[in-house]
């Protein structure tokens, strides 16, 4: 599976430029599911990236399975940490950010939700945006914040959808907050309660 190409959108919608090797600089790598392949591709392009890399992997999804985890470990990163979900890995990832110094690169690969959350964590820790490479792999489901109740719904696959917190019918805007790591969801039937368009699958 290749990196996703998204259709053109507004300037706040994130674009993922893909992973490019920055040599043997100290780095943090975080991937989920098929994103692990992007890290493997990166190491193939320049094996030296692994020398000072602390690699975090969430082997989500049966399609990628344990094989990819074994391959990633075999790439020889300076350290390798695996977790069942990003939420579970987050404390160790946050600690690695706290220990990092300027000059550290961050490589992120996986769904938009994973990239968004990990990027928000890294930016809050002081890592400059320009030190982050990200590559989208996997499904197109979005992480969306309800502008009304502020609750975040993960893995939103259709537009409109029902907010998992307050139950309002929300349409998904392309407007995106890096600080929150989520798209904006706004009530679709605010002016005409009950008149909700047929949900469409979200496409890249």
């Amino acid at each position, binding site marked *: 599976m290749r990196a996703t190409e998204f259709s053109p959108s*507004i*300037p706040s919608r994130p674009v993922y430029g893909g992973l490019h090797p920055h040599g043997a600089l100290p780095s943090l790598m975080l991937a989920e599911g098929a994103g692990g392949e992007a890290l493997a591709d990166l190491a193939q392009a320049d094996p030296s990236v692994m020398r000072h890399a602390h690699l975090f992997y969430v082997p989500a999804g049966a399609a990628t399975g344990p094989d990819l985890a074994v391959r990633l470990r075999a790439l020889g990163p300076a350290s390798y940490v695996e977790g069942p979900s990003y939420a579970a890995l987050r404390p160790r990832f946050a600690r690695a950010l706290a220990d990092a110094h300027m000059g550290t690169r961050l490589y992120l690969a996986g769904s938009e939700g994973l990239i968004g959350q990990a990027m928000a964590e890294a930016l809050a820790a002081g890592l400059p945006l320009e030190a982050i490479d990200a590559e989208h792999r996997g499904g197109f489901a979005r992480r969306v914040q309800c502008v009304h109740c*502020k609750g975040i719904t993960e893995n939103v696959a259709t537009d409109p959808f029902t907010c998992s917190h307050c139950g*309002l019918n929300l349409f998904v805007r392309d407007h995106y907050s890096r600080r929150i790591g989520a798209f*904006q969801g706004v009530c679709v039937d605010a002016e005409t309660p009950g008149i909700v368009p047929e949900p469409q699958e979200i496409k890249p």
Partner: protein
Amino acid sequence: MTIRFNDETFRDDYSFRNSATAIRRFPFPFDKDDYMYSVNMEPHGTGGRAGSVFEKRFDVDEHYVAEMRDRAITLAGDPLRCQSLPHMELAGWDLLELIMQCKAEDYPDLFQLHRDGDRWHWINRPLGIEQRFTFLDPTTLPCGPMEYITRQAQGDFAVLDQRENNLWMDAGMVTSQADWSLDFDIGMNFFEWHAPVPKAAEMGIFQRALKFLLAIPQGAPSRRLNWTMTVNPRLDTSPENYHLWGPEKRTITPENVGAKQYLRVELQSFWRLPRSNALAFPIRCYLIALEDLVTVPKWARRLHRVIRDLPDELAEYKGFAVNRPIIIDYLAQFDDGKPTSPGIFPDD
């Protein structure tokens, strides 16, 4: 000069009213018979046209007390309408100083500021506030400096950090916005927070506007007018509460359009702040019912032509496309086709 402050509301029974004086001094935003985005900046500061909303640096009018009451209600329900990222506290003090100083100088009968080094004493007569505090010590105020002063100043306030040749929406008090969320947009740069505006990016207008704003020096503030339409004199037209006020937008009929449909004008000004090098961006909101606006014949003719000829996507973005036909029909009866004079002020 003494102002009589209205006892009025911006929600529920909507008892907001403009006096005859308020109508005459309304900042009508169109200087000609058509409209397109433009940077349209002009100098702001002391010595603006007498009697107009441009006369003082921070205009105080008959709605002051009621607007501050409405802001307090909004904040009580949603404290996230006022936020400041940690590095913006110094800019908050800059803003507090700017507003206190301007108000005390421009309205000495309403506001007083006594400074003895960092020991400050602030008196706000209309709101009945008297506060002694230590400048730059936030623990001597009931809340952060930006929140403190913007609970006492009409209009929304964005405080923009300047870095990387860009401006960043890093602090604000936003309770009367035209449909944008500070909580969502905080931390975004100029291009990101304007991203949802149609067409403007491709016109390069934001590039030019940003360059102008980055170069605003101390002591030379600028201003521009922006506008939209709102049903009912509602300040809190936030996306947060859209599901609550949205149904009101569909209540316009040919019979009630004059009374219920309001032109909403933002007087935006831009101030370089001294200690923080941040840019203060007050967004003052003025509301006028169409039936009041048409009492000025020039405005009635011109608003009809502007609304009639506006590109569809702008009406859509500004959120009044659904009511546009009724608005145009209503305004058409006041447009006899005669030419209008240049500029925004009434003819007589």
